[in-house]
């Protein structure tokens, strides 16, 4: 295993209403190649900002982000566009293009990344099959359910064969059953292609279900990181402890009622 993503001393301060707000306060993080790494935190902890700094949707103030040996923050604009073809991103609100059909949504990243035109159709069909959307290629996103929409989102993120996926609360808008299906899909994609996935979420179960290692983000700092099991069993941070307590509580509910995911 080698390190794929390495974030060193990353800082980001916002100025809402002129007052400084440290959203990322010296983040250090290492994600191994091919793993599914979870980042958990409450809303406002800086999770999304961290995710968005990695593909530079957000500018960071200082620090460095190395992705597969490339220093993301030093790329020129042109190089950044190219690099983004190698980073897939999945969103909580799917962010699909309503004016396009499912097929066109999945084909779009190929078209902008200069994929050979003659091979686009084949690649789209291949990807659609992987995510289970073969029947829906001609539909518009407006006609799909939440789970199907996220499948399009995932297809769009992996169609260019990227090395890395950022999942920013990808299952937070879905019901528990659909969440499981989407997590299974991510797991399957990871197992098949060895793609590295960074899962940003506030959902304990999602992390427990598909992540091996995780980090806890608290007020812009990584307060602990390590194996998921260790953190749930022996939390050292405020957030980790709270999540572990909620987790135990849920487990008890599950034991007594036999429900929940």
């Amino acid at each position: 295993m080698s390190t794929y993503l390495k974030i060193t001393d990353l800082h980001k301060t916002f100025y809402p209403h002129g007052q400084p707000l440290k959203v990322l306060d010296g983040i250090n993080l290492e994600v191994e190649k091919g793993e599914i790494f979870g980042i958990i935190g409450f809303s406002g902890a800086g999770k999304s900002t961290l995710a968005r700094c990695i593909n530079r949707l957000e500018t960071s103030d200082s620090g460095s982000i190395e992705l597969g040996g490339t220093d993301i923050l030093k790329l020129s604009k042109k190089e950044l566009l190219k690099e983004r073809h190698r980073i897939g991103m999945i969103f909580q609100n799917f962010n699909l293009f309503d004016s396009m059909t499912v097929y066109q949504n999945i084909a779009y990243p190929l078209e902008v990344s200069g994929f050979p035109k003659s091979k686009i159709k084949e690649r789209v069909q291949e990807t659609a099959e992987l995510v289970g959307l073969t029947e829906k290629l001609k539909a518009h996103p407006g006609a799909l359910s939440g789970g199907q929409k996220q499948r399009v989102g995932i297809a769009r993120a992996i169609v260019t064969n990227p090395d890395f996926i950022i999942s920013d609360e990808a299952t937070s808008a879905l019901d528990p059953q659909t969440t499981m299906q989407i997590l299974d899909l991510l797991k399957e994609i990871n197992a098949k292609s060895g793609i590295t996935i960074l899962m940003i979420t506030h959902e304990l179960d999602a992390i427990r279900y598909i992540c091996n290692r995780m980090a806890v983000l608290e007020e812009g700092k990584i307060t602990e990181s390590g194996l998921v099991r260790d953190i749930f069993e022996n939390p050292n941070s405020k957030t980790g402890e709270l999540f572990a307590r909620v987790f135990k509580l849920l487990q008890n509910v599950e034991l007594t009622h036999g429900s929940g995911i």
Partner: protein
Amino acid sequence: MSLLDSSLWDVIVASFSPEIWKDLLGPIGETLYMTSISSLITLVLGLIIGILLTISNPDGLVPLKVSYTVSGWVINALRSLPQMIMIILMIPVARLIFGKSYGTNACIIAIAASCIPMYARIVESSLLEIEKGKIEAAKAIGSTNISIIFRILLPETLPSLIRGFTVSVITVLSMTALAGMFGAGGIGDIAVRYGYQRFQHDRLFACVYILIILVQLIQGIGNLVSKQILKTRNLV
């Protein structure tokens, strides 16, 4: 026939007489010509300026604060001119371009000058309506700004752009009637010359019918097209 010496009913009946409508055919053609040419110019230039405004917005794709502020100021200044004053202001410009300051083509310049800034603002507000997440997704995919504008921004907001354009075409139409007072011909010219100056209210009424039908038609087509697009996208 005038309301001064005939009953309202008689004037209404007279307003449907064939001879009145025969005289109106030419002016209807002029109005349609003025409206369509002016609308086309408004559409093209309004779209371009609206797109430039949107992307130069401080939160836009290519933030250009100074240019955004200055162009915003210019547009507001142009929009604060009443249509009639714009027509008068454009007389020398029309003379420069067409060699005469009256006539249908001369008035198209004034109409476009007045409606372009309005449609540019409508385009801007339509484009700003797009969910920011879609732009983010397009950026994350690695799209260039050109593909974001032409493949995401414009298609995603198309129904709203069409509704905005419908409003503009109706404004253009109403302005052609006003331009009729300044030698542009068209239905406005008939309404002023016969209805106002000669008290031939039957002719005035006929002009009113035409304008009502035209506005209904334009609005109806606009609504239909934009709704059809939303339907195709399963958004209604």
